[in-house]
């Protein structure tokens, strides 16, 4: 049953990823990525990583993808038009990607084929995870919280609409500044 579960959800994940490539509209790509993430969460549960599985659903598929879908709807993203691709890219690119994948898969299959992974023989519980996170990895944890704060401030600053006009054209500003009253300067 474990093997069946693995193959069902692995197929689902690969199908979602291929659908992401095939679809032209960004909203379809975002929703197929949600399908990939759901399938991966089941695989994490098979590997005994329960906390990671639920964080995958809550944070990744819940929060981050909602942000993506929100931006897609905010910008009214249309299906992308096909770019004028060169023929060299089609001739070389696809075989190169397949060769990379075959290289990866061949190495992994020969290297790790005799190392079975069984469900339930090692469960990384949330308690163990918390103990490791707040003892051994306390400094990285705090550093990531600072990183998060910087990211939050940066996102707000970048996406905020600028009210003041850009400080371009210094000559025009200097010529017109003689006519502006102090009250106008305060408003500006």
């Amino acid at each position, binding site marked *: 049953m474990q093997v069946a579960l693995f193959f069902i959800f692995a197929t689902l994940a690969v199908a979602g990823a291929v659908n992401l490539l095939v679809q032209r509209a960004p909203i379809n790509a975002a929703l197929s990525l949600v399908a990939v993430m759901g399938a991966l969460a089941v695989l994490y549960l098979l590997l005994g990583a329960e906390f990671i599985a639920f964080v995958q659903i809550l944070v990744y598929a819940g929060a981050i993808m909602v942000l993506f879908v929100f931006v897609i709807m905010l910008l009214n*993203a249309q299906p992308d038009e096909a770019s004028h691709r060169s023929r060299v890219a089609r001739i070389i690119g696809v075989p190169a990607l397949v060769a990379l994948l075959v290289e990866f898969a061949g190495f992994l299959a020969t290297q790790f084929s005799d190392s079975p992974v069984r469900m339930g023989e090692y469960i990384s519980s949330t308690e163990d995870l918390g103990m490791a996170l707040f003892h051994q990895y306390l400094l990285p944890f705090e550093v990531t919280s600072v990183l998060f704060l910087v990211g939050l401030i940066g996102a707000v600053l970048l996406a905020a609409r600028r009210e003041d006009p850009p400080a371009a054209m210094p000559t025009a500003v200097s010529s017109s500044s003689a006519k502006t009253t102090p009250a106008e300067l305060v408003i500006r």
Partner: protein
Amino acid sequence: MIPLSYYLILSAILFCLGVAGFIIKTDVITVFISIELMLNGVNLSFVAFSHFLRDIGGNIFVFFVMVVAAAEAAVGLAIIIAVYRNRTTLNVDKMNLLKL
């Protein structure tokens, strides 16, 4: 039961599809989504190795990857909104100037 290599090969497939999407897509949001797909592929191999080696460190690393992905998504989407406001396009082929 399931060899570790199956998980790693699935992870490699997802990563390669993410690379392909990153390269062939012209829409900047879809390019960003492809990056998330690559991160997910790498996360799967981290969890698989964590299970195989009986070490909690892989799970911790996945946790940090998720944090960085969340920060990256917030900042990146803010940049996309700012660029769209100035250039009114999402096509990466048309975003070819550093100057406005």
